[in-house]
């Protein structure tokens, strides 16, 4: 599903050059649940962002669903992300000005859909994460775990084949974290969604199919 070939990422600032990723080659199979671990600053987020086409590698190739994505225009990238990928972030990144339902509808705004369809799909997605009763709330009125569930609903509302989650439980206590983990595992099992998750938690990582460890930008396991 995701095919990375000798990915290298160099961040250049005026004074320093950071090699964030060093020749990473990785295949994620369709329907696989992969976790990525490693110390802080080792390049996990960078790797995930490159997989999600949010950032371009300095060198190397990415294929997603056999599609070569190098050379895509801004618009093509946007459409590709919209159809194929759902993102979940450690700090949720919900839009506080919008109600829960509008937050969840967001990915559907960028594809052809009617207001009615959007509402139906978003309501269904919220039901899947058990938040049917918080539709009209604003994000600031929710707990951390609830916010992350809204974020998951937003990630799955467009039925993407891939979910990329960057420390989705990082800001949550273990009970809430486990809830989130259950939802992701369930999603992977029932819908066959390919999931790549960055985590610091060995327990969480153990529940996934495969674990990749990074150290200083290189793959060590």
């Amino acid at each position, binding site marked *: 599903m995701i095919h990375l070939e000798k990915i290298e990422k160099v961040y250049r600032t005026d004074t320093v050059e950071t090699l964030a990723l060093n020749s990473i080659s990785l295949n994620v199979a369709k329907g696989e649940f992969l976790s990525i671990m490693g110390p802080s600053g080792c390049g996990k987020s960078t790797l995930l962002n490159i997989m999600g086409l*949010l950032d371009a590698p300095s060198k190397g190739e990415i294929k997603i669903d056999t599609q070569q994505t190098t050379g895509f225009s801004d618009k093509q990238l*946007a459409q590709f992300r919209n159809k194929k990928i759902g993102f979940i972030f450690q700090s949720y990144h919900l839009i506080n000005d919008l109600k829960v339902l509008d937050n969840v509808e967001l990915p559907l705004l960028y594809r052809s859909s009617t207001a009615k369809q959007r509402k139906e799909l978003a309501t269904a997605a919220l039901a899947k994460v058990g938040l049917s009763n918080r539709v009209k709330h604003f994000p600031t009125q929710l707990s951390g775990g609830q916010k992350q569930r809204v974020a998951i609903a*937003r990630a799955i509302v467009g039925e993407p084949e891939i979910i990329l989650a960057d420390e989705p439980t990082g800001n949550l206590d273990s009970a809430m974290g486990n809830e989130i983990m259950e939802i992701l595992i369930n999603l992977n099992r029932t819908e066959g969604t390919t999931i790549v998750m960055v985590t610091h938690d060995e327990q969480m990582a153990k529940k996934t199919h495969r674990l990749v460890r990074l150290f200083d930008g290189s793959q060590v396991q």
Partner: protein
Amino acid sequence: MLKNYFKIAIAVLKRRKFFTFISLFGISFTLTIVIVVAALTDHVLSAGYPDTARDRELFVTRMKYKGSKSGSDISAGPSFYFFEHYVSKLKTPEKLALISHNYATSTYINNKKMVTQLSYTNDQFWDVLQYQFLEGKPYTKQEIDNAEKVAVISESTRNNYFGNGVAAVGKYIETDNIQYRITGVVKNVPLSREYFYADMFAPYTLSKEDIHNTDLIGDYTGVLLLHSKDDIDKMKTEYNQMVAKIPMLSKDLDLRFTYADSYLEAFTRGLPFGNGADSGIGKFILIISIFFLLFLSLPTLNLVNINISRIMDRYSEIGVRKAFGASSKTLVYQFIVENLIITFIGCLIGIMLSFIIIQVFNRSNIIPDMELSINFRVLLFSLFACLVFGFLSGVFPAWRMSRMQVVSALKAQ
């Protein structure tokens, strides 16, 4: 999609109330000034009482001589003689209205001296200009030819001289020691109708100027009324041909300029914009546009600043939208639309404010008898100004925003 933009635009407005206030205040204040100025300009430059047939009128307001060597020039209105001997012979016009400049004459009311602005006219003047007679009628061609001492006075002249609303037709008014019999009273004309404002009108045959003086420079304004507006080009051509045939004044003054102009051309020719054959309309419009843009640029820059700081607030939102499939172009579009929404709210407030100001102005008699209005043209122009304003202030911040790195926007906080 628009509904969603609207939702977020309103939410953003509500979030930073102080910024919203500053933005809206800036927009509505600016717009108020723009609209009031536009209403003033519209009033001055467009047809209105008593000059209602402007689309088939041409104005002859100026006679200028210039020496090509010496560079010296003489410029004033054309003389009565010029109109009588040359212009009135033209074939194209249906009618020719003539009116002299205002003469300040002295009138005594209860031993108190008042200035009465007196203008001399021909008889067709009353056919071309649609003065509204409150009583009586204009003096006739017969009366003019006989040099009878008759006059038409304005409503306020009547009210000052005879008392409010007292009938005046048939009575006499004395100014500069001459008694005039009043044939009619007309509704007041505002001072802003520069050619047609007077307190009192009298036959040109009563003018102290020698109407047989062959000098082409004098103090008259002529209005050529055409059969239809399709005759305008034909009229201008005929006018220019006629002028070319008139002998020059002297060897030193070997260039002569006089034109049959549209009202706007005559207006700009009177300002320092006109130069020789060029009426200066182009320059006038250019300068007005530059002034307009400069005036708008300050509040625009202010709004740009506010918008940029607002965008910084929305860093994460922008990242999220991009991650979930908004292209940079879509985001630019969203932001411009949002800004237009805010601008339009500001503009609505501005329109209401200027409506109030114009009402106050009309009632205040700062310029007597001048009725400003927000008509369709002014409204259209205001909406255009809004659009320009909203667009200018939205484009740059939107462009900045769309270039932001998604990745850094989505960093853990």
